[in-house]
C-alpha cells in the first residue's frame, strides 16, 4: 500500500494513502474532537466539530471524512479552527437543556468536555428550545431527545451493527429528531435493547435507565468479567460503586465482542443484587427450610449421601453439573461424583450440545465449533440452519450482519421467518424436523451441479462413494415433498452455497434437539466437507453453544461417558445421562441427587415425570444462587456465588478459554461452587487441597491435553486461548482441522431422513416447535430476577399462523388450549406469519407456562438428546378465558 507524508501540528507522519486526517492525527497522538465519527460506522461528516485547517485549502475541512494528501500540512487547533468549534458548540447550546447538574452523562459527555475545553458556557443568543416528550416507558433506556445533537451514531449502530434498524432520522429542520417509526416509544419498535446506541451517544440523550442517579463516572471502578448468559462469552466491564454494580459496558478490545453486547449482557447483570439471592444454607426440617451454618449443612449432605451409598450402592447417586459455572467447578463436580464411585454425572448440554459431540467426533475425530466467531465476517456465504441467531446469540448475528454488509450471501433454513430470514438471499422455510432431508437435498444438488471440491474430497476424506449412493434419491422434488421447500428455491440455495469460495455453516438447537440430532449434525458435516469448507479461515461447521460454558463443562468431563480430555469411559461403565437420571429416579433406582446450578424442573422435557422423579428421591441437594423450582424440592440448599463474585475460567462456543475475576462480593454466606465442593469433598474424606481456582486449573491442564498449555498467567496476558493449546509455547488454535482431521480423514456418513418421533394426526394436527426469546435465557432463573429483562415481554404467547387461526376461529390475544399427547396448557395466541401454517411456536422460559409439560422425552439414540424441538399438538380456543 502506498504511503503519504503529512504534517500535523508540526509533527511529520507517514500513513497509508486513503487514511483520513483524523486517523493520521491519532497516529501522532493528536486528539481531535468528534461527535458523529465512529471508526466502525459509515462516515457522514455531519457535525463538523472535527474541522481542521489545511494549509493552502480555503475552507476548513472535516478531518473525520477528508483523506490526507501527500505533503499536507494540518493545524488542528489554529485560531480559525477554535473559532469554528466554539460557534458549533454555541449553536448546540442554543437549544440544549442545561441540566448538567443532574444529567447522568456528566463527566462522560462530549458536549460538556468540549465546552469545558473551549470555555464555552452559553449560547450567546436566545435559541428555541425543543420540548419533546421523554421516552421512559421501557425498563432499559431513557430517551430524552431534547438533548440529541443529531449526530446519527445511534442510527448507524442500530442499522449497521445490530441490524434491528429500529430508529432513523425523521422530519426536517428544527423539528428533526431521531427515533422509531411513527415516533413510537422504543418499546413498540423493533428495538431489541442491545444498548449499542446508548453507549455511542456522545451526550445524555440516551441513558441506561437503571443507572440514573446511582453514581458519577469518577466514582466508578470498572472490572472485567465474562458474560454469564450465552455461549458467545462476551467480555463485560461491570461498573462498580461502593461494592455494587450500577451499570455495564462492553470491553472494547475483547476479540470476541469488540465493544458490542446484547441486551442480556448489557442490562441483565442486576440479578446479582436481587433480593431473592440465597444468602445462607438451608436444611429442610419437617417440610420447611431452616437457615443453618455451613458446617451443619455440609455435615448433613455428607451424612445423607453416605447413607444412600451404603444402603443402595454408589450408582444410586447421580449429579447434575452446570454449563453456567466455571471450568474449575465443573471439573471438581465430576471429580467429586466420580470419587463417590459412580459415573452418573451429566449437565444440561445434554439438551443441546451432545449431538454435536457425537456427530463431529464421528465425522472429524474431534468436536467443537471449527472456526472463530470473528471469521464469520470474512465468509462468502453463510448458511444458518436451525438457529435464530439474532435472539439466541446476538453478537454472532452482528458478525453475520457484517458479512452480509461486506457482500456475503445468506441462506437461512428455519421453520420460522426469523429476522435473519427476512434479510436472507435465500430463505428455506422447512417443516420442523425435516433437516436431514433438506441437507441431503442440498448435498445432492451440489454433487449434481458439480460444485463439489474434488481435491479436498480426494485428499482429505473418505466414504464419498457411499454418501453419493444415499444422496441419489434426494432429488429436489422428493425433498420438497418432505420439507415443504419448493424445489426451485432449494436449487438456488445449493448454487449459492456451492459456488462461494468460503462457506460458513452456523447452527444451534434447531439442529440438535431432535431425535435425529446426531444425524442432523452428520449431514451438516457432510455438506461442509463436500464443498471443502473445513480447515480454512471463514469456513467451517460452527455450532453455537447455548449457555456460556457448555463447551467447558464438556471439556471438563461433566459427562457420563467421558473424563476431562478425550478419555472415553468404557461402555459398560458409562453413567446415566440427564434424562436417564430422571427416569431412574422415578423408577427408584437413583435415590440421591446433587444438582449444581441447574433447574431441571423447567428445562427437562416431559415435566410431569421430572416432578415425580424429584419427589421420589430419598435425598436431594441443590446448589444455586436462587431458590429455583428445583431447589424448592431439595432437602438441603447450598447458596452459591454468582459469576461476578468468583474467579474462574469459561470456555466459549469457539473453544476460547477466558478468565473472569471476582468483581464484587457474594451476598451473605454464599460461597463459590468450587469452595463448596472442596468443603464437601473433605467432609467425605477425599483430602482435596485446592486453595484457588488457579490451582484447580493446574490439575485440569495435566488431565486434558487440549488445556495443557493453559494457565492463569497466560490467560491474563492474552485475551483468552482457544484449545487445542497443547503446550505453554502454543498460541491456541483458532481454526480446527487445518492440518487435516484428528481422525486421519474426514468421514462422510450417509444418513437417511427419518420422520420425527411423533406424527401429527387428526387429534394432534399441528407441529409445536419451541425456542428462546432474546430477552430471556433458558429457564429465566437469572433473567426473571433482572428488573429489566424480567419485566419486558412478561407474558409467554403461542405464535399461530393467521391461516390456522382463522380456521380454528382464534383471534389475536385469545386464550387457547395447547394440548399434546402428554399434557396441556393455556396461553394467549399471537397471530403472526413468522410461523408457517401448520406449525405453532412457544418459548420455554417461564415457569408459569412450562411448555415442557407438552414436549416429548423421546431420545436421539446416540447422543440421548430429548426431542425438545418438535411435537404434535392440538390448539383450540379455551373454554374460559382467564
Amino acid at each position, binding site marked *: 500500500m502506498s504511503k503519504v507524508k503529512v504534517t500535523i501540528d508540526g509533527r511529520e507522519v507517514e500513513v497509508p494513502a486513503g487514511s483520513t486526517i483524523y486517523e493520521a492525527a491519532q497516529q501522532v497522538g493528536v486528539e481531535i474532537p468528534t461527535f458523529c465519527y465512529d471508526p466502525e460506522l459509515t462516515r457522514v461528516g455531519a457535525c463538523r466539530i472535527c474541522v481542521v485547517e489545511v494549509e493552502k485549502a480555503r475552507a476548513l475541512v472535516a478531518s473525520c471524512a477528508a483523506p490526507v494528501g501527500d505533503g499536507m500540512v494540518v493545524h488542528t487547533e489554529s485560531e480559525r479552527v477554535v473559532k469554528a468549534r466554539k460557534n458549533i458548540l454555541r449553536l448546540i447550546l442554543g437549544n440544549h437543556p442545561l441540566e448538567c447538574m443532574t444529567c447522568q452523562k456528566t463527566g462522560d459527555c462530549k458536549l460538556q468536555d468540549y465546552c469545558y475545553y473551549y470555555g464555552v458556557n452559553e449560547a450567546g443568543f436566545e435559541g428555541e428550545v425543543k420540548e419533546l416528550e421523554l421516552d421512559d416507558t421501557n425498563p432499559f433506556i431513557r430517551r430524552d431527545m431534547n438533548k440529541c445533537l443529531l449526530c446519527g451514531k445511534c442510527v448507524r449502530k442500530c442499522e449497521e451493527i445490530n441490524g434491528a*434498524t*429500529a430508529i*432513523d*432520522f425523521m422530519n*426536517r429542520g428544527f423539528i428533526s429528531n431521531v427515533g*422509531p*417509526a411513527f415516533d413510537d416509544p422504543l418499546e413498540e*419498535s*423493533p428495538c431489541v435493547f442491545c444498548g449499542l446506541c446508548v453507549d455511542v451517544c456522545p451526550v445524555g440523550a440516551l441513558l441506561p435507565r437503571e443507572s440514573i442517579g446511582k453514581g458519577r463516572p469518577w466514582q466508578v471502578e470498572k472490572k472485567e468479567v465474562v458474560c454469564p448468559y450465552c455461549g458467545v462469552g462476551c467480555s463485560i466491564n461491570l461498573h462498580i460503586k461502593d461494592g455494587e454494580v450500577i451499570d455495564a459496558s462492553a470491553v472494547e478490545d475483547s476479540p470476541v465482542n469488540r465493544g458490542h453486547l446484547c441486551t442480556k449482557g448489557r442490562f441483565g447483570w442486576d440479578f446479582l443484587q436481587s433480593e431473592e439471592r440465597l444468602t445462607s444454607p438451608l436444611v429442610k426440617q419437617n417440610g420447611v427450610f431452616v437457615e443453618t451454618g455451613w458446617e451443619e449443612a455440609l455435615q448433613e449432605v455428607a451424612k445423607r449421601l453416605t447413607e444412600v451409598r451404603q444402603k443402595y450402592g454408589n450408582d444410586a447417586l447421580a449429579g447434575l453439573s452446570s454449563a453456567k459455572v466455571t471450568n474449575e467447578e465443573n471439573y471438581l463436580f465430576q471429580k467429586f461424583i466420580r470419587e463417590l464411585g459412580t459415573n452418573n454425572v451429566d449437565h444440561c448440554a445434554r439438551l443441546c450440545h451432545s449431538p454435536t459431540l457425537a456427530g463431529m467426533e464421528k465425522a472429524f475425530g474431534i468436536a467443537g465449533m471449527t472456526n472463530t466467531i470473528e471469521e464469520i465476517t470474512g465468509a462468502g456465504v453463510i448458511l444458518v440452519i436451525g438457529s435464530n441467531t439474532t435472539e439466541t446469540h446476538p453478537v454472532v448475528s452482528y458478525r453475520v450482519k457484517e458479512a452480509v454488509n461486506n457482500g456475503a450471501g445468506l441462506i437461512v433454513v428455519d421453520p420460522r421467518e426469523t429476522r435473519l430470514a427476512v*434479510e436472507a438471499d435465500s430463505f428455506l422455510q422447512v417443516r420442523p424436523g425435516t433437516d436431514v432431508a433438506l441437507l441431503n437435498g442440498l448435498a445432492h444438488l451440489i454433487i449434481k451441479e458439480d460444485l463439489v471440491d474434488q481435491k479436498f474430497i480426494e485428499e482429505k476424506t473418505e466414504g464419498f462413494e457411499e454418501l453419493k449412493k444415499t444422496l441419489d434419491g434426494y432429488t429436489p422434488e422428493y425433498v420438497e415433498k418432505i420439507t415443504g421447500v419448493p424445489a426451485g428455491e432449494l436449487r438456488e440455495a445449493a448454487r449459492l452455497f456451492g459456488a462461494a469460495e468460503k462457506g460458513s455453516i452456523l447452527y444451534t438447537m434447531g439442529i440438535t434437539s431432535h431425535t435425529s440430532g446426531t444425524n442432523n449434525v452428520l449431514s451438516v458435516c457432510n455438506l461442509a466437507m463436500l464443498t471443502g469448507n473445513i480447515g480454512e479461515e471463514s469456513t467451517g461447521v460452527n455450532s453455537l453453544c447455548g449457555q456460556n460454558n457448555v463447551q467447558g463443562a464438556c471439556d471438563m468431563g461433566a459427562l457420563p461417558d467421558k473424563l476431562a480430555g478425550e478419555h472415553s469411559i468404557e461402555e459398560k461403565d458409562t453413567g446415566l445421562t440427564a434424562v436417564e437420571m430422571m427416569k431412574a429416579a422415578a423408577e427408584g433406582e437413583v435415590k440421591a441427587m446433587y444438582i449444581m446450578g441447574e433447574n431441571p424442573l423447567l428445562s427437562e422435557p416431559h415435566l410431569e415425570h421430572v416432578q415425580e422423579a424429584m419427589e421420589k428421591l430419598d435425598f436431594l441437594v441443590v446448589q444455586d444462587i436462587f431458590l429455583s423450582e428445583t431447589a424448592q424440592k431439595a432437602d438441603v440448599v447450598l447458596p452459591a456465588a454468582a459469576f461476578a463474585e468468583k474467579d474462574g475460567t469459561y470456555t466459549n462456543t469457539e473453544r476460547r478459554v477466558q478468565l473472569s475475576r471476582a468483581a464484587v462480593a457474594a451476598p451473605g454466606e454464599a460461597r463459590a461452587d468450587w469452595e463448596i465442593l472442596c468443603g464437601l469433598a473433605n467432609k467425605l474424606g477425599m483430602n482435596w487441597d485446592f486453595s484457588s481456582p488457579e490451582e484447580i486449573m493446574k490439575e485440569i491442564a495435566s488431565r486434558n491435553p487440549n488445556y495443557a498449555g493453559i494457565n492463569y498467567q497466560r490467560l491474563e496476558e492474552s485475551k483468552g486461548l482457544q484449545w487445542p493449546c497443547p503446550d505453554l509455547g502454543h498460541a491456541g488454535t483458532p481454526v480446527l482441522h487445518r492440518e487435516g482431521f484428528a481422525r486421519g480423514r474426514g468421514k462422510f456418513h450417509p444418513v437417511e431422513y427419518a420422520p420425527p418421533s411423533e406424527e401429527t394426526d387428526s387429534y394432534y394436527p399441528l407441529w409445536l416447535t419451541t425456542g428462546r426469546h432474546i430477552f430471556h435465557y433458558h429457564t429465566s432463573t437469572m433473567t426473571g430476577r433482572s428488573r429489566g429483562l424480567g419485566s419486558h415481554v412478561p407474558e409467554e404467547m403461542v405464535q399461530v399462523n393467521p391461516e390456522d387461526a382463522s380456521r380454528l376461529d382464534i383471534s389475536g390475544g385469545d386464550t387457547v388450549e395447547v394440548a399434546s399427547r402428554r399434557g396441556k396448557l393455556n396461553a394467549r395466541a399471537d397471530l403472526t406469519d413468522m410461523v408457517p401454517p401448520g406449525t405453532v411456536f412457544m418459548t420455554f422460559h417461564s415457569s408459569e407456562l412450562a411448555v415442557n409439560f407438552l414436549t416429548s422425552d423421546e431420545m436421539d439414540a446416540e447422543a440421548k438428546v430429548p426431542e425438545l424441538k418438535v411435537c404434535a399438538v392440538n390448539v383450540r380456543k379455551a373454554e374460559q378465558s382467564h
Partner: protein
Amino acid sequence: MGEEATALPEIDLDKVDEVVDPFLGKKGIMIPVLQNLQEEYGYLPRPAMEKAARKLKIPVSKMYGVATFYAQFHLAPRGRNIIRVCKGTACHIQGASKISDRITEILGITTGETTEDYRFTLEEVACIGACALAPVMTINDNPHGRLTPDRIQEILDSYE
C-alpha cells in the same frame, strides 16, 4: 355535514399489494412506492406503510424517515380540498395573515390541519408567482387572488 364527520375512512390494505407488487425485488424504490401509495390513499396510512415495508423488506423506520423528510408526503389523511395560502413577501405585505386568520375562524383549523369532515386541509406555500394578484391562495390548484377576509366564506362555499 354532521353525519359525515366520521372517523378515518376504512383502509383497504389489499391495495398495498397492487401498489407494491410491481416493485418487489427492485432497488431504490422507496420514493416511487410512497408516491404511489399516497396516490392510492390520498395520504400515507400507517398500516399501509407498515405492510408495504414488510413486503419490501425495508425497515419501517427508514420508510418513515423518508416519508417525513419530504414535504410532498402526508402522514395524516387530508381533506378533499387543499387550501394553500401564499406566505411569500408580496402576499405577506398585502395581508396574507388576515386571510389565514379568517379561514381559521370559519373552518376551525390552522396551518397543517384538516377539518373533521375531511372537507378542507389548510397549508401554506411560498410565492406562487402571482404576486400581482396578492394576497393569493389556491384551492386544489385553482388560484384565487386579490383576496379580502370578507370574500373567503363565499369562496369556501363553492367547494364541496
